[in-house]
């Protein structure tokens, strides 16, 4: 794994974010673990004494981010890596159009990501180093009947990250979007996914992929399968119901 020394993980209380925090802290990196559920962060801090800095924060509190970001970097005494792993995916019925659920997804999966990534991008553009990682999703590759807004937020996040990559590439900043496939997390437990990846496996693959700018699937089979899925014409995709 890359020798990161100072990192911020947003959405660190569970799932992939918690695992990334654990693995970074185990490698000697000082990690600011950001999430709402402070009790879980404190548990992480207890597991990795001295290397995890728990930071209670609701990502929808966008306007607190600039100040919080600087407080964190000051306490970490530097910054090499920012990982945005916060995400929500409420259950949405096939005929359900619930604005509150949709808004929550837009806010947590996309808008808050922008609030954090803008701060990271601004800093790294000036310091000419650093790595920004966003946890996208294969779900963002196509618009599906089951999760219109979740798909849209992940697609938006992927496009936003691509734009950041194009802005920051010449400054020596790595901008990485990873698209995990099915992963066993609290967010997906109700979906009973078959062959889902353990979060620890996903986390180690994500940290390995963070070494190079770009969009990355975590498995070669996903890269092939989703290249095909992306290539399916819209009229045909509608009929396939995949």
């Amino acid at each position, binding site marked *: 794994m890359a020798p990161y020394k100072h990192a911020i993980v947003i959405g660190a209380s569970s799932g992939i974010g918690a695992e990334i925090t654990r693995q970074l802290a185990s490698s000697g990196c000082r990690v600011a673990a950001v999430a709402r559920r402070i009790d879980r962060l404190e548990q992480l801090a207890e597991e990795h004494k001295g290397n995890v800095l728990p930071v209670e924060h609701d990502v*929808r*509190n966008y*306007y607190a981010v*600039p*100040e919080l970001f*600087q*407080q964190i*970097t*000051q306490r970490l*005494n*530097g*910054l090499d890596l920012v990982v945005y792993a916060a995400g929500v995916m409420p259950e949405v019925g096939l005929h359900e159009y619930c604005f509150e659920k949709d808004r929550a997804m837009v806010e947590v999966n996309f808008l808050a990501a922008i609030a954090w990534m803008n*701060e990271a991008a*601004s*800093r790294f553009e*000036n*310091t*000419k*180093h650093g790595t920004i990682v966003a946890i996208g999703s294969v779900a963002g590759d196509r618009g599906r009947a089951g999760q219109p807004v979740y798909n849209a937020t992940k697609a938006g996040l992927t496009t936003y990250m691509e734009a950041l990559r194009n802005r920051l590439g010449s400054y020596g900043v790595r901008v990485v979007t990873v698209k995990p496939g099915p992963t066993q997390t609290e967010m997906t437990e109700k979906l009973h996914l078959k062959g889902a990846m353990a979060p620890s496996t996903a986390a180690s693959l994500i940290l390995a992929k963070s070494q190079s700018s770009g969009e990355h699937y975590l498995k070669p089979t996903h890269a092939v399968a989703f290249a095909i899925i992306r290539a399916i014409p819209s009229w045909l995709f509608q009929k396939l119901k995949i």
Partner: protein
Amino acid sequence: MAIPKAQDLAAWAATRTRKHLETDRIGRLSGFGFTKHADGYVYRPSTLEEAREVFEIARSLKRQVVLRGAGRSYGDANIGSECIVLDNARMNQILDWNPVTGVIEAECGVTIEDLWRHVLEDGWWPPVVSGTMYPTLGGVLAMNIHGKNNYCSGTFGEHVLELEALTPSGQILILTAKDEAFWAVISSAGLLAMITRVKIQMKKVHSGDLRVLPLAPANWDEQFAIFEQFEGIADYMVSWIDCFGSEKGAGRGAFHAAWYLDEPSEHPRTLEQSHQDLPDTIMGFWPKSMVWRLLKKFNNRLGMEFINWSKYASGRILGNGKPHPQSLVGFSFLLDYVPNWRNAYLPYGFIQYQSFVPKEHAKRVFAQQIKMQQAAGLESYLAVLKRHRPDKFLFSHAVDGYSLALDFKITKNNWPKLQQLCHQMNDLVLQAGGRFYFAKDSTLRPADVRAYLGEEALATFSRFKAQFDPDNLLTSELARRVKLV
């Protein structure tokens, strides 16, 4: 959560600037050797009042401050992670110059280059200069630099008539040699106060040239014998050492002594800037701005062994013992001959290791240091020997003896081994009663610093720190590393 309206956003923006620093100010800074980096928020005040405001911002946001001049300290004395970096570059006015008395008054951001360009045509020269003309007066005095005439002219601080310093608590100090704080603020590596203005006595010269005598000592015995021979005679002395020389050739190198000259003319042309300016090309055609790229090709163990040997061998044959005139700038600022020469050490950079050893032990210690390098396969590619005299500044680096400055290239994998070598060399220096120099340091440990500075000096430092900087605002990566703050 309520979404702010447009007018609220403007208010929020104003609040934002008060609650944290402007992100646009952050930058990644390094010491001159490129080996240590830190991200800091850079402020470049142009007046004393603005500098005072920067300290206020730091205090209100609970940020520490690192003082930075031209960034010529090799290691980590001019950087501070997550600190406010108070850069003196825009406080660069020459405030007064008296060509009759040779007293100049200047702000802290004035460089040595600014100084000599201002005074030379009136027949004056900075009394002490470093090997490069780019350091600012603030940096020069924070580190209390020395030159090739340290043994007879002392450090730069010894030529200061008066200085003004701004403490982090906002107090303005006017200090002369009669004040105890004068001897502490100068040399304290920017950890007590920001030197903002300084009055200096320049050195009278009657020519823009020096008479330079090159000699090619074949070993350590000859090196030290030559230094002793010219000690009471020459105005400047310096010697380059080939660190690849061993056995009978250990300590071989190229020695230069230099003397000020008198010229019959009242306004000799050698005092003009056009006579002093370093040429843009080498051998009349090779642009000097490109030379570092060529140097980079040779900047490896084999290449540098060849270059060091060639330099020694050519020195034995060409001009050995034959004095020649050389401009003050040409002789003094050897490091400025090749612009951006440090780029030849990229991507990992280099450190300079300089230790100061009493004259009774210098030959033994330096010979041993080079043997240790050779045993480790980590020979310095450039080594410079100088003669020194002690001074009474608080963090003095000088001794009645000699210093050896060693440039070491950093590679992808050699840092742990190099650090270990430096620590072993530190032990050797300390056992001999030697000292070190913060402007050059990258490897000292807290115990090393305690050992060479001594408890009394550290207690004095703590007393002044509590008086001038009670909130402990001033720091640096070096100060944190060696636990000075």
